[in-house]
């Protein structure tokens, strides 16, 4: 009996509008959203590590570079000057992200020293490798296109690859973009390498340009700098960086010209002006005949071409690392 009585009493008390009941009720009402918020924010950790995106055509050596930066070079026993292939790589199907650190206290010259001394002064960042196969480029481009400063590495992945939680839902501020090209393949004039590489670079630069033009308000983020990394300079057939630059510029001018004369895309109505508005469809400075990377400064995009190599004997990847380090 008494238990029922006490229950009854408690029930009655809870329905009587006394100050204590009201305050408890209020507390519950106010706390629930907060608790819910914590539950959800706990499942989606928000890391603010900046990120650097690796793009480029298939076979340029993006994945190879990523593994080099992550693992450091291994030296062959007989010849300590030549790093052995870091890890073998094959065509990538999904992007991948690794966390790296660049030290900030002393002028960094090599990633090797950074790897050894990942001290408190090190700055961490995410390096994101993307697949270069033409059918899989869309993810990388879609992300560059979004005007927000952040990218979500996991969304670069095809939807299936997102599993579990953790870092996959985190956002990250895009700080720089490295466009890797295979300088040895470019040297072969009869292959389609030059035109296909330039086409990808064209799409990347145009996307960045549009992103700049569409930025909203003054709070808008500054644009990302682009490093065109001429890879495989260890091969004697490879073009030197200066030539890679001029060849790409020439090819980009050609693409720009034919694109402006090309057919409309399906879905674009006739009325739409193709390239009229703020040079939306025209890469670089309007009215210039020969494209040069300098034109991109107008859109707050700094483009630099630096040569190097991932495997073999050559200038190595130190300069690229330095470039990245300066922009984190």
């Amino acid at each position, binding site marked *: 009996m008494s238990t029922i009585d006490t229950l009854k009493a408690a029930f009655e008390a809870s329905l009587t509008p006394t100050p204590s009941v009201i305050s408890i009720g209020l507390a519950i009402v106010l706390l629930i959203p907060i608790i819910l918020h914590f539950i959800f924010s706990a499942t989606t950790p928000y890391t603010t590590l900046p990120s650097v995106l690796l793009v480029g055509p298939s076979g340029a050596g993006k994945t190879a570079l990523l593994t080099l930066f992550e693992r*450091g070079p291994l030296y062959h026993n007989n010849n300590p000057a030549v790093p052995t292939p*870091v890890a*073998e790589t094959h*065509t990538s199907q999904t992007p991948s992200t690794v966390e790296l650190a660049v030290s900030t206290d002393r002028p960094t010259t090599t990633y090797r020293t950074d790897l050894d001394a990942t001290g408190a002064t090190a700055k961490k960042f995410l390096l994101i490798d993307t697949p270069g196969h*033409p059918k899989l480029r869309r993810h990388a481009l879609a992300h560059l296109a979004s005007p927000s400063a952040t990218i979500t590495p996991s969304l670069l992945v095809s939807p299936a690859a997102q599993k579990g939680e953790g870092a996959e839902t985190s956002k990250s501020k895009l700080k720089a973009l490295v466009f890797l090209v295979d300088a040895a393949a470019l040297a072969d004039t009869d292959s389609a390498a030059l035109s296909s590489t330039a086409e990808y670079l064209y799409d990347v630069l145009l996307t960045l340009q549009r992103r700049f033009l569409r930025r909203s308000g003054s709070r808008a983020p500054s644009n990302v700098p682009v490093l065109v990394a001429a890879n495989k300079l260890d091969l004697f057939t490879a073009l030197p960086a200066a030539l890679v630059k001029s060849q790409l510029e020439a090819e980009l001018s050609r693409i720009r010209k034919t694109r402006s004369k090309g057919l409309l895309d399906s879905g674009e109505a006739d009325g739409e002006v193709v390239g009229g508005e703020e040079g939306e469809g025209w890469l670089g400075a309007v009215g210039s005949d020969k494209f040069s990377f300098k034109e991109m400064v107008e859109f707050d995009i700094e483009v630099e071409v630096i040569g190097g190599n991932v495997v073999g004997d050559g200038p190595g990847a130190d300069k690229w690392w330095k470039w990245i380090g300066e922009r984190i």
Partner: protein
Amino acid sequence: MLDAFEIISTSGVVLWSRTYAPVSPSVVDNFISDVFIEEKSTVAGAKDGASATVNPPYKHEQHSLRWTFSKELGIIFVAVYRSLLHLPWIDKLVDNIKAIFVSLYGDQLKKPNTMIVECVKFDEYFDQQLQELEQGSGKPDARAFIVEEISGTGEDGPPLSFSLAHNQKAQTNPSAESSPTATPNASRPATPGASHLLVAKAGPGGKLSRRARKIQNSPSAPVSSGDEATARKGKPAKTVKRGRKWDADGLADERDDVQLDYSIPAVTSDSEAEAGARPAAVEEVDASTWGSRTKGKFVLRDLGDEVHSILADADAKNAAAKTDFQSGIVGSSLSAIGGLFRNVVGGKVLTKQDLEKAMKGMEEHLLKKNVAREAAVRLCEGVEMELVGVKTGNFESINSRIQKAMEASLTRMLTPTSSLDLLREIDSITSPPAASLRKARPYVISIVGVNGVGKSTNLSKICFFLLQNQYKVLIAAGDTFRSGAVEQLAVHVRNLKELTAREGGKVELYQKGYGKDAAAVAKDAVAFAAQEGFDVVLIDTAGRRHNDQRLMSSLEKFAKFAQPDKILMVGEALVGTDSVAQARNFNAAFGSGRSLDGFIISKCDTVGDMVGTLVSIVHATNVPVLFVGVGQHYSDLRNFSVKWAVEKLLSST
């Protein structure tokens, strides 16, 4: 014999590999892009989890590849061997290796933001499996391999000497214990000869992280067991190679420093013996009898037990998953409610049942958009495959997830592997770069298709576009069959001349009347164009039904004679189920070395959102759509935009 075995992550990093004979990386690269990215293999969906028996073997030049795939972890297991060989155990090997690797390193693979997987020790497991399966396959087979290997030894000269040099080095600084020592000189029974000597080159020492290497070099680390029953010659050499853990009689480590020291002098003689023994294949075979030493047996049995329990576990798990699936339908009411909640809030792990209904809806949707059933089923199966086991995002419903995945699938399917910039391509042919050896010549485009789809109209549209860009175009009347065809083209040419008179282009008609061989006319037209300095030749062809054997077979000769740079097929957006067969037959009609280069889809303005034909034909042929026709005027030709098509296909009205 096996040439190589690789374990590759979908992000493109080789996690573990073993090479017995050099295989060009392009073999595996092609395999990945053909099977996984372009999905050229006929059955999509036979992908995840399916054992290597089910997955069709991939052939590239003289190599065959057997493979399996773990979707959950994103890793591919692939065995490469010569197509000539018959290796009955290879499927089993691939499957078992997958089970073992996943159970050993699954956790490491799930770590975010790193690509490093430390799997130095995996060598032992691999050797154990290989040995076990090879033995299981019976004596006759084994003998066959020996013969194979011996014949291979001759060609593989250089790697052999490399590996010898390698051994030499190991002797010169034994104290250093650098990676050569650690290199697993794994070898298998019944395969003496070249294969195990080549291993040195591919040992993991060269490609593992430094940390991994440290571990490998540190005294306690078990270095790969070259298995015993094999043809390695000197016993002392084995001791060195095996490292510490399993010394004589299977006792664990400790005393090894002493052991190692005392074995060193013997090494030299061994490797000399090896050099001497090289030409003597007979001795190699003999050597396999040495394998009966007890030492190694212990090791192998221990490892074997572990492997077997792993495999049994994996089997059990598979079986459990199956029963789970059944009992899951009954499901406790609590989890059902939780599931409903998660449906709304997101964060739900998708199961096959969850997806089933929604996938049916998606399939219906695609069918309504005029996608051929075959293609719709393939797309849906692919998406379902992709989504099982995936967790939905916060506040994401199953349907929106499916929508997203389907969008990605469609985009991947429709996006061409190489983009086409027609004008630039024409320029590069008609005025090649100075450095190249090619001679300038006219660019040749020919247009094929069934009757009445609008071949001539679309040809004229392309011509109009080219004329606007000041090209000199020759139109060849290749339809020498249907009466009135030539006259129809003449009308088009006259119109085009008028329309573009002030733009500066030039267009002429090349015709030889009716009844002539179309291939010969086309060939003459190209020669004429080269002479007269035309930039582009557009060849019209007679419309033909795709199941008309006689006319279809003449296409092969046509392609040979005219040597077109581009063969474009015109297809109608209207056709329904026939589209797949049409596209397939045309794609196959040009002989073995040639296929279609692209499609022009006409009459897209008449179908609204029902652009499913696009999907059907790309599904059937893997040939991209280049242009779409959107009206009656010469200017109504558009570049095909993947984004546009995908939006239309997924729009819900």
